[in-house]
């Protein structure tokens, strides 16, 4: 059953050193900023972080990196105009990097959530990102074998949730959240508000409650938009 919490520290309690943490968001849209900040205070270290980017500016994921908590980044696009924290760590040899094509990143997490052992993917064939990977020709087309990425924890930013744990997102802030929620042992979502069970349209629920362990309700700490 999903726990609905208002205390960010409680929301991230128990995340262990060495965990693989899936962090949603694409740029700032869907980024679970309050959960990341709480994770920094919580102190877990030696983390592998899976996220599309590798932090922007000095806050959020960049702050987690700056605090030295991340051993390895798995992402599609670390280099951005404001990714100076990651850039510095990488150039100093203080962080490992695995670059994965964006769709393969999403599909590998989907595979983890869907119980798929591995899949043949056409993306990246013949490129440096396929080096060392098993390939196979199927029906005349070449594919690379890709394996699931499973998280110990997923931190997801959704728009709203209900008391049972169902989630809805808003516009392109949906991005990686629904996939990551399926791929982690412990899924923690921050939402702008929590509604009573039954208030979300069952046809429009994006993440069913089965995938959500904890919800951090930000409504008490955020100004209503």
């Amino acid at each position, binding site marked *: 059953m999903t726990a609905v919490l208002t205390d960010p520290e409680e929301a991230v309690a128990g995340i262990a050193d060495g965990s693989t943490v899936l962090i949603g968001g*694409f*740029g*700032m*849209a*869907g980024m679970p900023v309050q959960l990341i900040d709480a994770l920094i205070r919580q102190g877990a270290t030696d983390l592998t972080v899976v996220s*599309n980017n590798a932090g922007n500016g000095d806050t959020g994921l960049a702050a987690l990196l700056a605090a030295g908590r991340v051993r390895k980044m798995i992402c*599609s*696009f*670390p*280099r*951005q105009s404001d990714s100076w924290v*990651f*850039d510095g760590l*990488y*150039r100093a040899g203080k962080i490992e*990097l695995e*670059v*994965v*094509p*964006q*769709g*393969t990143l*999403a*599909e590998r*997490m*989907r595979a983890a959530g869907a119980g798929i052992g591995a899949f043949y*993917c*056409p*993306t*990246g*064939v*013949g*490129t*440096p*990102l396929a080096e060392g990977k098993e390939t196979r020709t199927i029906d005349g087309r*070449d594919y690379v074998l890709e394996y699931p990425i499973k998280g110990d924890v997923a931190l997801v930013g959704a*728009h709203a949730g209900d008391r049972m744990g169902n989630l809805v*997102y*808003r*516009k*392109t*802030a*949906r*991005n*990686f*959240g*629904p*996939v990551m929620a399926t791929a982690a042992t412990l899924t923690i979502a921050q939402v702008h508000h929590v509604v009573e069970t039954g208030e979300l349209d069952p046809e429009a629920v*994006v993440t069913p409650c089965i995938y959500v362990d904890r919800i951090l309700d930000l409504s008490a700490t955020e100004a209503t938009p």
Partner: protein
Amino acid sequence: MKTTVKTTVKTVEHLGRGPLGRDELAALVARDIPPGSFVNLGIGQPTTVADHLPAGSGVVLHTENGMLGMGPAARGDDIDPDLTNAGKVPVTELPGASYFHHADSFAMMRGGHLDVCVLGAFQVSERGDLANWHTGAPDAIPAVGGAMDLATGAKQVFVMMTLFTKEGTPKLVPECTYPLTGLACVSRVYTDLGVFHIGPHGVTVVETYGTSVADLASRLEVAVRPLGQEE
């Protein structure tokens, strides 16, 4: 198996003018996108193609961060941090739009459902290999984003680029020297100096701007044929 294709269509050499400006190039690409197509425009210059799509074209724009039916860039009060394009620029929503998550969005791409994507490039080879994600410089931090997914998945990949680097090196090449994004995926190359089609029998020049086919042939290491002389 070699087949000989002869057409009566001829390459158009626009000689009484200079090379295409960036806006003219974007307009040219926009002109060639069939009405009603589903299209992804890459980050940077390809994004500007949207400004040149004629009203009523029925072209539907996809953005890989999970939207079909993307509208123009948002301004002023329309800016919504929850609604951006793949370049993280605030955009708007058109009637008939839909949202989906990243795995669904890239399934749409990988599954071959997009009619056209338009990408920038460092290099394109005569077989249509694309290099657009990494300069191969030893100190560069690799970052691929959705480039490989688009190159592999779209039914047609259009490239927009200058034909030569600032140093005068051709970017349409016999063999890419930069790390590849995708193999044999580019079908058309739109450049400031000319438009090229890449097919199973090599590179054809469709139009030139401020230069001739003969001039381009002399400046490129790639064999380029005028239309009507495809082998």
